[in-house]
């Protein structure tokens, strides 16, 4: 079974031309298997989660009823990116599974929208948002270790509550960056092979082998995104994650959910009074524990 399709170039060189299309189904099946395994685990095997620390009533009282989580700009970016990503996936893969329509123009236009929105996001996140909030920090790594040990039945202290984004959210963001940027960079070059309004066609921009690898990378990133987005949608629809999903629509999450899942010291919510940095965690706070990847993705 070949994962890539190969061809012989006019110069007699054996070159890859694209991924084998059965990988589309591999990604879809992998996504569904993840749903089944994860949902089964949560339903029958997961133990209640535990967190270290408590939040003093004084701190809790200062948390507003609606905790702002995503600005309007960030939400608009997210949904524009989502729309363009779905358009890209459907226009790329539906024709490969037998649904035929003139897809190329829609595909590259959606790609341009995605690229523009990502460029905007990079600037927005770098200069107008807390850039480091989405990257794993030392506490995330320590807590990941603790959670793994506890999952394995070892005696280990419970993890802290989450910062603004749980580790799984951060890792997912990293995976999306890797797959998304691979698809975008290769896709921009691939636009030189079709007629667009941006630049003249130049199919000889690279050699056959380089082009072949570019198509392969684009395809791998594409099928990877199928699975990643299936997982993202799955978590977005899980009942315990709905507050996070709603926050991407309305911009805020409830105080109760915030206090249950997040550490006011790690995710400081601006209030009209003093910041919540005076919150003093106590060691025995209990929530739900051991759910691994259930945390927001």
């Amino acid at each position: 079974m070949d994962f890539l399709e190969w061809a012989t170039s006019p110069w007699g060189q054996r070159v890859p031309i694209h991924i084998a299309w059965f990988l589309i189904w591999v990604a879809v099946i992998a996504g569904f298997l993840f749903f089944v395994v994860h949902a089964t685990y949560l339903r029958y095997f997961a133990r209640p989660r535990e967190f270290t620390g408590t939040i003093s009533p004084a701190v809790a009282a200062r948390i507003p009823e609606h905790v702002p989580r995503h600005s309007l700009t960030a939400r608009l970016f997210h949904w524009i990116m989502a729309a363009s990503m779905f358009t890209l996936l459907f226009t790329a893969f539906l024709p490969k599974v037998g649904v035929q329509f003139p897809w190329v123009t829609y595909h590259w236009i959606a790609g341009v929208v995605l690229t523009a929105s990502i460029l905007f996001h990079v600037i927005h996140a770098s200069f107008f948002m807390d850039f480091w909030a989405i990257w794993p920090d030392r506490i995330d790594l320590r807590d990941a270790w603790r959670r793994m040990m506890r999952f394995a039945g070892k005696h280990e202290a419970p993890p802290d509550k989450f910062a603004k984004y749980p580790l799984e959210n951060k890792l997912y963001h990293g995976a999306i960056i890797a797959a998304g940027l691979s698809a975008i960079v290769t896709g921009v070059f691939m636009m030189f092979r079709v007629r667009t309004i941006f630049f003249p066609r130049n199919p000889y921009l690279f050699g056959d082998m380089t082009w072949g690898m570019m198509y392969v990378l684009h395809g791998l990133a594409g099928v990877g995104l199928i699975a990643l987005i299936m997982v993202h949608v799955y978590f977005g629809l899980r009942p315990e994650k709905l507050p996070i999903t709603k926050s991407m629509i309305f911009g805020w999450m409830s105080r109760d959910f915030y206090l249950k899942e997040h550490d006011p010291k790690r995710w400081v919510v601006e209030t009209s009074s003093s910041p919540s940095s005076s919150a003093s965690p106590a060691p025995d706070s209990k929530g739900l524990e051991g759910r691994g990847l259930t945390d927001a993705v």
Partner: protein
Amino acid sequence: MAVIRDVMAAFELFQPASVDDAQRLLEQHGPDAWVLAGGLDSFDWLKDRIKKPKVVVDLSGIGELRGIRAAGSDGIEIGAMTTLTEVVNHPIVKQKYDLLAQAAELVASPQIRNQGTIGGNVSQDTRCWYYRSGWPCYRAGGNICYADTPEGRNREHAILQADRCVAVNPSDSAPALIALDAKFVIRTRKGERVVDAEDYFIGPDIDITRLHILQPGDLLTAIRIPSTWAGAQFYFEKIRDRNVWDFPLMNVASAMVASGDSSAGNGSAQTIDRIRISVNAAAARPLRLKVVEDAVRGQPRNAATGEMAGKLAVRGAIPLQFNAYKIPLMRNLVKRAIIGSGAAARSGAEEATWTS
């Protein structure tokens, strides 16, 4: 690239005696099966070892696919395996649907028309030599068009509706059938399906690896021509490099019903009541020029209308490096199809010109 010629790769040959058997075989073997009609396109592929099907289904023994018969009171039905010579010589075709006879008579040479079938002619593959040489182009499942490059040999290629691939459909009978509003009868695994002639063909934007809608397992069984355009005024013209026999650089077919006095001067006394017009070898599919039809309906049949139609027909054309000549060629062909072939009718009509 080394090509082994004249020695076909081994395949399993089936020679069914009925459409049912043929369709069952095609369904059974799916994409591994190759449909053999007259063999004139097929043997190029097989001998050059560019296509290596595991199974070949030879339709030549199926009697029900041959012949031209009346389709009730409404036109005729031509079996897909009817040879082009039979089409050309059939009295009803000559009398009522002479457009098809004209088109079929200009296909290749007499020997080829004796062997080639109407079904094969409309279903043949493109002549793009990069593709037919076995290069890994888009149409062959690859990721490049060798013809649409600065140095690509693309004199014969598309000026309209190109989408990555710029190959053109080479059929002569296809535009005539579109102009006659023919219906194609297809046997699929779900039963019989009848599609308009223009919908039988698809461009690379829909499927870059095929020129028609037939899926593995499907079989074109017949072509029905309704009486709608029987006895209309027809025009067919094919431009080719070698008039002895060649594929078209472009062709045009029109069926027109006009009213008024055709004997008067330049023909402007006639009014175009109804018209269907189609060109081929301008795109990957034969194009029905619906916009032109709408624009000229109700107009006087004269040089001005022809000129307007020609300009309209090439709107949106994008020439490649070596085929800009096709734009004035198409303008002129459409114009002539509107005006007609008579010298009197063409008086006052200026031809579009092109210089390299």
